[in-house]
């Protein structure tokens, strides 16, 4: 709500003028019954044609002014409403971009899109109608009563009774039906769920010959919906007849009281007509007011839903340091003197003391890392400690939910650890500026994701200023050359939204190419070659190792064949590091790894690998 008002404050003048102009228009409308009464009392009684014509002209002028004011008000309120919606959408989009994709996943893209479009649209309508009506309708209702009092206070007393009774009826019906409509909506949701479920599971339903029972279950849900709709319909159908009765009883009362007044000589016929007119005006505005309240409550609910998204925040503090060059690693390595690879790191850093365009690789250290996705009770990672040399190849293997992806997600700092630290070249990732950090990392996610645009556009996501030559090189490395050539459009190949015109394996290879274009210090393949056949997978790994510079490569996979030649393999099980070492070491020491191998290799191969020289 606060947010909404802050947007409206940007258009403060319009936000004030819109309802004001609407009110002016309403004021003019209120004069009409008085003038008509005058026409009857003075004009008709005195048979004064010129008086009547003068009054007519006055009426026409009022109508014209009313029109002008109304149009101005409509424009102002539309302007405020649409601008508010625009600002809201921009802010929402900007906000969504900062969320972690785990947050996005748990919210669901379709929900977020509903918030972005239909919810904000409801808010826009709400603001629009609010500005137009929130002053006008009450003003007309109470204005009519006020005018009635200026005409005659005796007959006007009926207004004092009628208005509260009408309010009471309108609100009682609204309050009674609102929760009932929610129940209807809930039942409709249930029907939607059943339908979706049946659409998705149509094969299983048919395989088990359960069509008839599914149908009868749906029938009873539909009956349930019908019953609820009829029930709420009965109540909300009361609104019109009841208000009709009250208003007309009010008119009858005016006639009766007015009759006595006239008889006593305190009132004229014309004035009674004016009172009757004011009474009729109330009804129209009151119903508008009721509709406005419904609309506003919907808009508020929508605004709250949008606000819920704003309230989900990603509390990461950006670091201040640039991405550390390998030199930084020396000091870190110094700190951990017991690390056997220290000399090695030092030697690489000597070679690349200045961070140039050339790929240097980066060392990775996990120290006692514990990590938990927000709501999960169980930590996704527990006590993970390992070291990877700059330029080495690390394999990570384990079942789903074992924490493989969680490890790689901590490196570009998509998440912060709960305790422990992740360090690149000896610097904690939390101290590094996120944009700089990520620009040194090439991550290929599990789900191959491409965007609408040319192949070149997509590759330039990796690096803005990549040349065609560099892009082609990356395509070669990613083993995508063959099919890119076969499409015949080269780098101008149009890619549809989400890469719909490509197969799974083709998409995967292009996403790998995109990461390679970046010339990252750390290249992470998060189970991203799963759709490739084994030969291509092997060729890909070979090409990366030989042609993508000395970057540190992390291969996440379920396949032994993918990780077996890595310098070091991390075996993940249930968020814990079950083992760490080379293929042979693990085959001889790690039972979890042995299990995995047993399911993917022949006993002879296993025996051979145990002994042999990998």
């Amino acid at each position, binding site marked *: 709500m606060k947010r909404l008002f802050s947007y409206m404050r940007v258009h403060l003048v319009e936000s004030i003028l819109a309802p004001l102009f609407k009110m002016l228009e309403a004021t003019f409308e209120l004069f009409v019954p008085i003038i008509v009464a005058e026409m009857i009392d003075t004009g008709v009684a005195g048979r004064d044609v010129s008086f009547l014509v003068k009054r007519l002209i006055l009426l026409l002028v009022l109508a014209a002014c009313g029109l002008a004011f109304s149009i101005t008000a409509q424009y102002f309120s539309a302007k405020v409403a649409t601008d508010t919606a625009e600002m809201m959408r921009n802010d929402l989009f900007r906000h969504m971009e900062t969320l972690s994709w785990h947050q996005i996943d748990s919210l669901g893209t379709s929900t977020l899109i509903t918030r972005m479009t239909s919810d904000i649209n409801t808010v826009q309508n709400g603001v629009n109608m609010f500005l137009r009506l929130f002053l006008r309708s009450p003003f007309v209702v109470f204005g009519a009563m006020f005018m009635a009092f200026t005409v005659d206070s005796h007959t006007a007393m009926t207004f004092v009774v009628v208005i509260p009774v009408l309010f009471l009826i309108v609100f009682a019906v609204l309050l009674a039906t609102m929760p009932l409509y929610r129940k209807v909506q809930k039942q409709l949701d249930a029907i939607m769920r059943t339908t979706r479920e049946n659409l998705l599971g149509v094969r299983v339903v048919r395989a088990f010959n359960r069509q008839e029972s599914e149908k009868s279950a749906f029938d009873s849900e539909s009956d349930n919906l019908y019953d609820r709709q009829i029930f709420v319909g009965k109540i909300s*159908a009361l609104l019109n007849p009841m208000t009709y009765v009250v208003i007309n009883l009010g008119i009858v009362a005016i006639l009766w009281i007015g009759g006595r007044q006239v008889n006593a000589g305190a009132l004229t016929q014309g004035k009674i007509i004016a009172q009757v007119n004011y009474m009729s005006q109330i009804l129209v505005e009151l119903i508008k007011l009721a509709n406005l309240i419904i609309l506003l409550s919907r808009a508020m609910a929508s605004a709250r839903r949008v606000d819920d998204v704003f309230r989900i925040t990603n509390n990461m503090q950006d670091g201040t340091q640039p991405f550390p060059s390998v030199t930084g690693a020396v000091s870190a390595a110094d700190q951990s003197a017991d690390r056997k690879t220290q000399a090695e790191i030092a030697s690489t850093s000597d070679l690349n003391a200045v961070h140039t365009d050339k790929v240097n690789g980066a060392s990775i250290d996990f120290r006692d890392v514990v990590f938990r996705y927000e709501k999960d009770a169980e930590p996704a990672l527990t006590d993970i400690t390992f070291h990877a040399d700059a330029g080495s190849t690390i394999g990570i293997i384990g079942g789903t939910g074992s924490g493989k992806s969680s490890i790689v997600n901590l490196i570009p700092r998509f998440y912060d650890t709960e305790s422990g630290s992740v360090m690149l070249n000896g610097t904690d990732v939390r101290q590094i500026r996120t944009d700089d950090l*990520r620009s040194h990392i090439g991550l290929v996610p599990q789900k191959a994701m491409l965007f609408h645009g040319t192949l070149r556009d997509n590759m330039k996501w990796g690096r803005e200023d990549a040349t065609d030559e560099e892009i082609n090189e990356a395509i070669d490395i990613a083993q995508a050359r063959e099919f890119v050539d076969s499409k015949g459009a080269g780098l101008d190949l149009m890619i549809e939204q989400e890469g719909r015109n490509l197969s799974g394996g083709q998409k995967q290879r292009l996403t790998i190419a995109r990461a390679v274009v970046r010339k990252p210090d750390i290249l992470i393949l998060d*189970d991203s070659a799963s759709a490739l056949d084994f030969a291509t997978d092997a060729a890909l790994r070979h090409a990366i190792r030989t042609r993508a510079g000395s970057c540190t490569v992390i291969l996440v996979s379920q396949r032994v064949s993918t990780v077996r030649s890595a310098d070091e393999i991390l075996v993940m099980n249930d968020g814990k590091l079950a083992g760490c070492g080379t293929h042979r070491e693990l085959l001889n020491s790690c039972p979890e790894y042995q299990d995995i191998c047993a399911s993917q290799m022949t006993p002879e191969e296993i025996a051979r690998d145990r002994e042999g020289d990998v």
Partner: protein
Amino acid sequence: MSEKINGVISEEDRKKSRRKSTMSRILLCIRPYLPLVILSLVLAVISVFLQLIIPVWIGDGVDAIMGKGSVDFSTLLKIIRKIVICICLTAAAQWIMNHVNNVITYRIVRDLRVQAFHKIHSIPLSWLDTHSSGDLLSRVITDIEQLSDGLLLGFTQLFTGVITIIGTIIFMVSLQPLATLIVVVFTPLSFVIAKFISSHAYSYFQKQSAARGNVTDLTNEMLGGLKVVQTFGHEKKAMDEFSERNHELSGYSLKATFFSSLTNPATRFVNSLIYDGVALAGCLLCFLSPFGGAVMTVGSLTSFLSYVKQYSQPFNDITGVLTEFQNSVASAARVFELLDTKPEPADDSDAVTLEHASGAVKLDHVAFSYVPEKPLIEDLNVNVQPGQRIAIVGPTGCGKTTLINLLMRFYDVDSGSITVDGTDIRHIVRTSLRDNYGMVLQDTWLKSGTIRENISYGNPDATDEEIIAAAKKAYAHSFIMRMPKGYDTEIEENGGNLSAGQKQLLCIARVMLHLPPILILDEATSSIDTLTEIRIQKAFDEMMKGRTSFVVAHRLSTIRDADEILVMRDGHIIEQGNHEQLLQKNGFYKQLYSAQFERS
């Protein structure tokens, strides 16, 4: 040029005729409720008539109040008594009418929805596979809701609106024909203006929805790929693109909102002009009588003015109803399209019921394709003896799913034949054929409901002992017992509270409960932890004992133990034979095998 025009016209005509046929379909849906519709009409006439007569009496009442000392209280009281009775009658008629309208609308909608849902279970899978489930869902839910809104508005506002217009004209003529003429002649003016404005607004509304589509597309794409956006630091560029599209949307939205909001003030302006004109004319007619005859009384002028107001009101409403109704007709057309889809051909009248097959399956020169231009399976021959194990291997998208579709007769073959125990499956009663198959797919589907309900899905009458036995055989019992409510644990939509492996174990238990003679199994490629995978494998082995089984295989042991291996690539079976034979062939299988299982 003229040809072009002809083309346009015929296109227009087609649209019109389609709309017309949709309209007549809607009327057909209404027909069963004809008595109710007539009742609603009668009530509408009554309530409108009463509503219109009341102002006359109010006018009479005003006339009874002539002036000081000359108020006829006994007449006034009589009139008031009449008015009060009528008010109550009107209210009652209105309420019953609304209720009747609800009953008609919601029943029609329920009928349609049930029909649409039943249709989903009888149309061929090919139709379902080629339509996105989101699209079908919106036909069953959103489109039918839209139709419901349209019908309800139509019944409530269109009926009463038209009757009110006719009624007010009659009453006005009876009061003062001359002034009525002014009203009737000028009212279309407000109609014309409203039409003019709304057609302008409509084009902006269209642009607005197109622009909104652009915004949605971009949001969808960027959120779907947020990980990539963040990885590659694309946030700023995405934001720029978004705000550009958003600004465009906002611009059209402003125009659409503003233009459409002009209708109300503009028509109100015209109406008040008419009202003012009538007020003047009425006043003059109170003391002038241009064509002779009686002058108007002040009371009847009052009534007349209130008719002028009541007369113009429905015009605005009807315009709104018509646009709403147009949307509804479009929605109804989409629903009817679903309802008109041809169902799966019925079983042959002489179709055989397959009691308990021995499990001999033969594919004889089978050809099949989803689209005629892209031949997929051509001349496929496989002869499976009862109890044999067939492994299907090949890269993703090679046609393994297609084979399952054909075996279960989700799709019919284009040529050739598939026989089970020597009978062409097209001559077997569908339900009995499918009863003989047990299917566990990687793409696990569970119903929302308890675990117990899910396991007994194929056999709802199963006892608890049978269910538990099946779960034990499927190695699912232990994890089920660890769930908060055991077998009564509710499974969330699509198994949200279960891991992929647990879902697959439940699917296995579901088949385990009633083991059919032929199995179709899909081994998990990924996403299952080692321990569970071993369990699934054991369960699979248990199931396959003595049963004909088709296994989409990824595991070496399964492949090696198979009696026959079908190596598929691009929809073709390119190699066929057992493990040793295929290795000796030194072909694609050998390639696959060495890439996957031998050292590189």
